[in-house]
């Protein structure tokens, strides 16, 4: 994955390039590191294990999962606005499966993830087969998912009472001794799987190819429609997983939350250096982008920046982080 954070799907060219590539990789983290150092100096609780793991990382999980999933979609040159409300719908369906229908935990979780896959499949079909612009197809899905989440839940949160294990999915800690919440582990494990999928498998290769030049990909004999659809389904599975994680964390499925998460996730992806024009991007970048947003939200509150100023600072830091990334690439 060395150079991939920068470039996409390639291994570094020459041996002398390895060192430079390694440095590049480090530079990708630059803004994150700068921000972390800043908060470490200005707050004495920021750089504690407890804050970093239980606050920063835990709050990265949901947006991070959405961002990881939607990275695939964005690299194809698409966009998915339905991830936020789609997540709520999946959370609600998880509640329906586990609480209302009393299905076993694993089946309920699987079902919720598959509902996410279904959302992705519908989006993907609209984009790939019916040629809807992704913005429109997923905007419609955003509205439809929001509506359905409210309709299905009868506009009330569904509380997980029957399956105590459900909450442990997010807040428990499967590794004895080390106090890392499962949600964080699940996030990193799935991010790594996603990175492998993107960089080391045929799905990832076609994802880049379609985003780079869909016509040329089609002429090369690749079934662009089918693979585009597959990419949206993958994105959808992550929506489902995010829905499970947010409802497990809150011990409840909140039907009205969700809107706004799509912008945060897309922002994380773009801060991570993935281009909305398609063809370029990396999973490492997306994870870093998600962390930057989470660290900022946490750190600004810790150093008691008044909330109305927090947005101003957040905006400026996003510009700074992206500018650093742009400089880094230009220097290559």
């Amino acid at each position, binding site marked *: 994955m060395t150079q991939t954070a920068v*470039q*996409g*799907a*390639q*291994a*570094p*060219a020459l041996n002398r390039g390895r060192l430079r590539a390694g440095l590049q990789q480090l530079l990708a983290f630059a803004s994150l590191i700068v921000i972390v150092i800043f908060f470490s100096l200005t707050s004495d609780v920021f750089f504690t294990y407890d804050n970093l793991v239980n606050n920063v990382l835990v709050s990265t999980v949901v947006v991070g999962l959405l961002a990881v999933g939607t990275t695939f979609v964005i690299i194809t040159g698409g966009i998915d606005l339905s991830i936020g409300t789609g997540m709520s719908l999946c959370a609600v369906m998880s509640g329906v499966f586990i609480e209302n229908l009393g299905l076993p935990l694993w089946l309920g979780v699987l079902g919720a993830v598959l509902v996410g896959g279904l959302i992705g499949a519908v989006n993907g079909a609209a984009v790939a087969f019916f040629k809807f612009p992704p913005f429109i197809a997923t905007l419609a899905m955003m509205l439809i998912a929001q509506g359905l989440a409210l309709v299905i839940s009868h506009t009330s949160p569904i509380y997980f009472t029957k399956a105590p294990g459900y909450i442990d999915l997010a807040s428990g800690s499967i590794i004895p001794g080390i106090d890392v919440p499962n949600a964080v582990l699940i996030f990193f494990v799935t991010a790594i799987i996603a990175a492998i999928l993107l960089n*080391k*498998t*045929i*799905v*990832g*290769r076609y994802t*880049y*190819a379609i*985003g*780079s*030049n869909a*016509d*040329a*990909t*089609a*002429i*090369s*004999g*690749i*079934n662009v429609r089918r693979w585009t659809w597959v990419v949206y389904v993958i994105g959808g599975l992550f929506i489902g997983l995010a829905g499970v994680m947010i409802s497990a964390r809150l011990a409840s499925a909140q039907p009205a939350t969700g809107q706004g998460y799509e912008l945060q996730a897309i922002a994380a992806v773009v801060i991570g250096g993935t281009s909305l024009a398609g*063809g*370029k991007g990396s999973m490492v970048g997306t994870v870093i982008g998600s962390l930057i947003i989470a660290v900022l939200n946490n750190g600004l509150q810790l150093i008691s920046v008044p909330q109305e100023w927090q947005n101003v600072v957040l905006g400026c830091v996003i510009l700074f982080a992206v500018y650093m990334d742009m400089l880094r690439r230009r220097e290559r």
Partner: protein
Amino acid sequence: MFTLTGDPDGEEPYVSNPSGDGTNARGPMSGDYLLQVSGVSKEFPGVKALDQMHLELRKGEVLALVGENGAGKSTLMKLLAGVYTPDSGRFLLDGEEVEISGPKHAQELGVSIIHQEFNLMPDLTVAQNIYIGREPRWGDFLLSEKRLNEAASALFERLELPLDPRQKVSELTVAKQQMVEIAKALSYDARVLIMDEPTAALNDAEVAVLHDLIRRFRTPETGVIYISHRMDELKAISDRIEVIRDGRYIDTLTTSETTMREVISLMVGRELKENVRPETEHGTDEVVLAVRGLSTKELLHDVSFELHRGEILGFAGLMGAGRTEVARAIVGADRHSAGEIELKGTSVRLPNPSVAAANGIGYLSEDRKRFGLLLDQRVGFNVALSSLTKYVGLGVFMKDNAIRVTAREMVETLRIKTPSIDQTVQNLSGGNQQKVVIAKWLVKDCDVLIFDEPTRGIDVGAKEEIYQLLNRLAAEGKAIIMISSELPEVLRMSHRVAVMCEGRLTALLAADEADQESIMHYATLRPDVLGAVDETPEAEMQEAGTR
């Protein structure tokens, strides 16, 4: 409905069949044919691109397909590649009728194609592009990047192409991108290889390499369809030449028994004034543009020359010599690290092409898709783009009617084949797209015109017209730089020839000093100091060129 025509041994030229149904009793056994196309028609909105088209490819031959811009060559090839489906007609492969359902199917049938317009994924590497859809894998899913690059390296070694499998395609020059396309097409175990203007972006040395590749590809079981507007290379590479005009089959000639003059007159359907030479012996003494010590970070080193009023200054050099970079640096499309540009005696700073254009310097890029055209806009808009400020009336409003009049004039003058000036440029044939770019700069009326490969993809007839046009412009007092990879063109058209090698200007030759040998000499005159920055590919290229 259709019977085969022609002599089994191909000794006699086919008789043209104006009705297009190809009825003719004589013909070889269909087993001798690799590929047959009969009665194929294809219509686009407002354009009948192919009308009862007919083509036969024999085993073991190179069949050249020629025709004017917009004659329908690429359309026919796209039908064969499964990109379009025909409105009517049949395809026979090895005598058996096939329906080509898509690009993948065409590949499976053993038909491999190099498209006229690049069809590469710029964000992927060279190797990834070549093996797209056929990546070496562990199991069904996991990619093996190592084996991929090894396969590509082996391929390049076999084809003797100076390509780096790991380089990103977006970083390659047009010529190298063309090489990637060629390598990709050859990497399939194809029986029918279709090349749609593979040499438009190549210079003579690279063309030789390509021809060598084709000869090696050809076996008794394979065949090549070769499309080109370079008449000189048809003689060198093809066995037979099929001529088409306005979407219709005209004739098929045996190369060894025909003259290019005959081919051309069949193609354009009229006599051509050939071998236009500059109207004046040399330009005036008035220096319009002076470039002094131009250098860039990457490549250019101390490039100096003067351009006179009324002069056509040819630029020759091997691929990557830096001709394009000189042009881009002059107009400010790229930054230069040192040097000075004087316009009519005063030093000017041209930070970007808009300032250059405002100062009367126009640049026509070699890469028309990327830097030349608004592909999704209409012909009229593209033609007027550079000169919109000329068409502002009443302070703010665009004078649309005046624009339309100009656009129609240009379509007529340059014989741009388009149903109307409202056709989207994307739907024009490659050569006609190039004409649109030229039209844009003609309307702009600059004092200094830098034409980078202006005749790329343009048919012979139109080429002559463009040469005449360049001469007329020069005679009118414009100063013209013509960058071209076609040496004959450079030699014919230039008052003087500038030769470049690895970012340096190695010679400025007067017309009578310039010939094939002298230019080749200076084009390979590498400075002994320093050495090249990016040595390997260029070195190999030059070997190929001098071989």
